[in-house]
């Protein structure tokens, strides 16, 4: 295109634009004139109206002045009363504020960074009602609360329930909830939530771990008389109900989350000091501090706790050495690898677990009490502890010393000291002068397997030839379930109350009575103990039962092991005990 053509096109466009502008401009002018005229007319009519209104207003003002005089009198009287009330209210509020400030002052504000925790196994889900693996429980303990908790002396202490009353019939438990507790969604915890949680535990479709007599299985009905009060009615009288519901399996969960997600395997429906954070299966799961946690005693002391799955023991230990991890789960074999120059501290506590030989009381020759006594006499428990636990365990009964005043000291019993002659004599008396052949079933962990090996040798000294069968975990559990055993080495948990330690394992109907032991008096005592509220009387009842069981040698208990952790020297204040191994309140990491 030529330059001239372009120029003429541009000129044409400019001309057209100018014409359009003029036309539009003229039209607007005419419109504006019209509007101005209309407005003038409006102003005239408004002035008229204003004058009328003025005279009306003068009349109204007169009336108002009279009314005001009257109102003033009444108002003065009311004001005086209101001021008084306000002063009282202000005083109350000030008092409350002071209290709150005092409480807030108690709250630890400073947190010490992130705790990195190396675990030996992978957690299997995070639903406190259906997950039982150790690793899961460590994580869930940070995320969930229960109605009550147990301190290290097994005394029941408040958690979500700040107080409670027990009915005289021992069948009615009334809990008064904390009014400031919230779920991690921010919603307040109410009596309805407690009711929902227990109904979830008891629903037959879920198969919750707490749905058994050892936990919440005895709950018959639940009432919620007001927002913060829960009344639970039990099927049978129980003195252990409070310690039963202190279990993680009886956690209070958020109905909204459960209903939205279907379950809590991967989701957080808790009230605990930490919220469930990032989860990468087979590698890590993080929990993050929950600022609005209701209880100062349990407030988060770390910004986050990072749980790592490190199944290889050497890798855990070396990560700790290198400072990549702050705390790891350990065992006695690992302790030997720690050298004095390693910057590592050892933390341990006496568990409430015990290792024992269970003998089948309904299968010959163990149906003869003399054979069972002979086996007890044959054992050298110190030697077993040296071999299986590097000496790091205590000779113990099935209600171990870590259960405080409930325990019976088994070392005072004659047959807990090795006596080969007596053992041989008892065997001969029972008709086995040359001993017999039997099977010792072991499995699950090294402690159990090592005990099996030493016991095999020790029994040889009295002529018993035992074949140690080392079973794969699941087979071991199958045999345990089927009570298919001559002698089985087991690791049991004595629980938090002697009712579990005795009735669960030794009453005729006990679900874990794998040795088929039966004694009418023990059964009777178990029923009595479960319904007795007086602690001293209960102690007498259970001690009688324990002594009968020990004298009849229903089992040959061996040792109560310690649990071990290895930690960076920077970790301070971590003091796990058998009641609570994952309470990190007050624990710090020095910088």
């Amino acid at each position, binding site marked *: 295109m030529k330059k001239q053509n372009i120029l003429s096109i541009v000129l044409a466009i400019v001309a057209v634009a100018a014409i359009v502008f003029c036309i539009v401009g003229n039209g607007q002018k005419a419109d504006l004139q019209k509007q101005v005229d209309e407005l003038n007319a409006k102003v005239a009519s408004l002035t008229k109206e204003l004058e009328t209104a003025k005279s009306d207003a003068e009349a109204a003002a007169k009336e108002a002045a009279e009314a005001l005089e009257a109102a003033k009198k009444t108002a003065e009287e009311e004001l005086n009363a209101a001021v008084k009330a306000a002063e009282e209210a202000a005083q109350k509020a000030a008092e409350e504020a002071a209290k709150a400030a005092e409480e807030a002052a108690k709250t630890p504000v400073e947190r010490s960074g992130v705790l990195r925790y190396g675990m030996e196994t992978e957690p299997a889900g995070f639903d406190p009602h259906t997950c039982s693996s150790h690793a899961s429980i460590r994580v869930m303990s940070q995320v969930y609360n229960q109605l009550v908790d147990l301190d290290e002396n097994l005394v029941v202490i408040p958690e979500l329930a700040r107080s409670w009353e027990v009915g005289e019939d021992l069948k009615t438990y009334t809990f008064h909830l904390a009014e400031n507790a919230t779920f991690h969604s921010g919603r307040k915890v109410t009596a309805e939530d407690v009711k929902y949680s227990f109904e979830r535990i008891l629903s037959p479709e879920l198969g919750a771990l707490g749905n058994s007599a050892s936990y919440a299985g005895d709950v018959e009905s639940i009432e919620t008389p007001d927002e913060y009060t829960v009344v639970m009615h039990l099927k049978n009288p129980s003195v252990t109900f409070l310690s039963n519901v202190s279990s993680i399996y009886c956690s209070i969960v958020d109905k909204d989350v459960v209903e939205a997600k279907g379950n809590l395997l991967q989701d957080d429906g808790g009230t605990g000091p930490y919220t469930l954070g990032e989860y990468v299966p*087979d590698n890590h799961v993080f929990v993050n501090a929950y600022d609005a946690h209701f209880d100062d005693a349990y407030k988060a002391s770390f910004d986050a706790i990072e749980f790592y799955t490190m199944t290889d023991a050497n890798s855990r230990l070396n990560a700790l050495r290198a400072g990549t991890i702050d705390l790891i789960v350990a065992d006695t074999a690992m302790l030997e690898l720690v050298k004095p120059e390693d910057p590592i501290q050892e933390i341990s506590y006496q568990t409430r677990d015990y290792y024992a030989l269970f003998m089948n009381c309904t299968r010959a020759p163990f149906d003869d009490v003399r054979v069972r006594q002979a086996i007890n006499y044959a054992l050298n428990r110190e030697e077993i502890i040296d071999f299986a636990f590097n000496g790091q365990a205590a000779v113990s009964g099935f209600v171990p010393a870590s259960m405080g005043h409930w325990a019976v000291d088994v070392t005072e019993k004659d047959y807990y000291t090795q006596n080969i002659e007596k053992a041989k004599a008892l065997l001969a008396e029972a008709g086995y002068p040359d001993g017999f052949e039997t099977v010792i079933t072991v499995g699950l962990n090294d402690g159990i397997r090592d005990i099996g090996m030493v016991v095999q040798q020790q029994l040889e000294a009295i002529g018993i030839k035992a074949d140690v069968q080392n079973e794969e975990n699941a087979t071991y559990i199958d045999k345990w379930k089927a009570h298919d055993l001559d002698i089985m080495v087991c690791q049991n948990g004595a629980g938090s109350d002697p009712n579990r330690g005795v009735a669960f394992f030794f009453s005729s109907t006990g679900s874990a009575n794998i040795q088929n032991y039966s004694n009418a008096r023990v059964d009777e005592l178990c029923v009595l103990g479960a319904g007795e509220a007086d602690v001293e009387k209960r102690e007498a009842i259970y001690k009688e039962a324990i002594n009968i069981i020990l004298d009849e040698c229903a089992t040959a208990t061996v040792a109560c092991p310690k649990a071990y952790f290895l930690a960076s020297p920077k970790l301070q204040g971590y003091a796990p005990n058998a009641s609570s191994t994952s309470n990190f309140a007050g624990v710090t990491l020095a910088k």
Partner: protein
Amino acid sequence: MRDYIIRRLLGLIPILIGISLAIFIIMQLIPGDVVSGILGIEQTPELRAMWEKKLGLDKPLVEQYLTWIGKAVTGDFGESFRTGAPVFPEIMSRFRISAELAIMGCIFAWIIALPLGIISALKRNSVIDRVVRVIALMGVSIPNFASATLIILFLAKGFNYHTPVKYVGLFENFGTNMEIMVIPAFILGSVMAGSVMRMTRSSMLEVLRQDYIKAVRAKGAPERVTIFRHAFRNSSIPIITLIGMQIGSLMGGTVVIEQIFSIPGLGQYTLTGINQRDYPVVQGCVLFIAVLYVVINLLVDILYTYIDPRISYN
């Protein structure tokens, strides 16, 4: 070629049916079950029945198998019994991690093994050859868990160092990911390198004895051309077969290394599944690994045709 590939892929169907049946039966035969694992000592007959119903384990085995395989065909491997997470997406995310580890391992192996194998063949019975053969033998015979543990201990004691324990994806943070993966990949590579080196050496030796190599040399071709264009290319068929098999087995076979270095790969997922008797996880993983193995072998077979034009599947 296309027909061949379709034929091979169709051949996959009976293989997969066989494998799925085998793994289903094996999982049923191993003692112990998922319910025992979940309930542990808290087990009562009532609770057990509740769980069996909930997980569908109360149904006849044939029905359980058909339900599972029916869904698996559509890519739905079900949900983990223990964590409730869908299995297939989890397998895919784990596969990426294992594949990265395996590929890095292979690269290390090739970098070490191919040049050394070729040199060793060319300088047969020399000092270099002997040294290389000893190294290869060590690579093959030292199990990777032993070398991994020793390396971790050496780094921790000597340098106060441990690879990062928090896994970070390749695309999340390349640097940290490499820090996590390089050592395990090197250990995997060193084991593979041993056998690849031995295979390269013997295969090269065989080809170098052939008449056509003499002809190439007599023609006056430069040694570089003789070795790489004529000898190495012709000797690479068995090497590639070996490498293909190794990659296939590495996909599920890095489990020991994954465990030691806490890498959340496919092997670790399968192993955790086996330990927890998590049937959907184990069955899904095994089926996936089987498909992968077959596909990798198919790729290797196709690769032959490019290396050796005489091979044809038509």
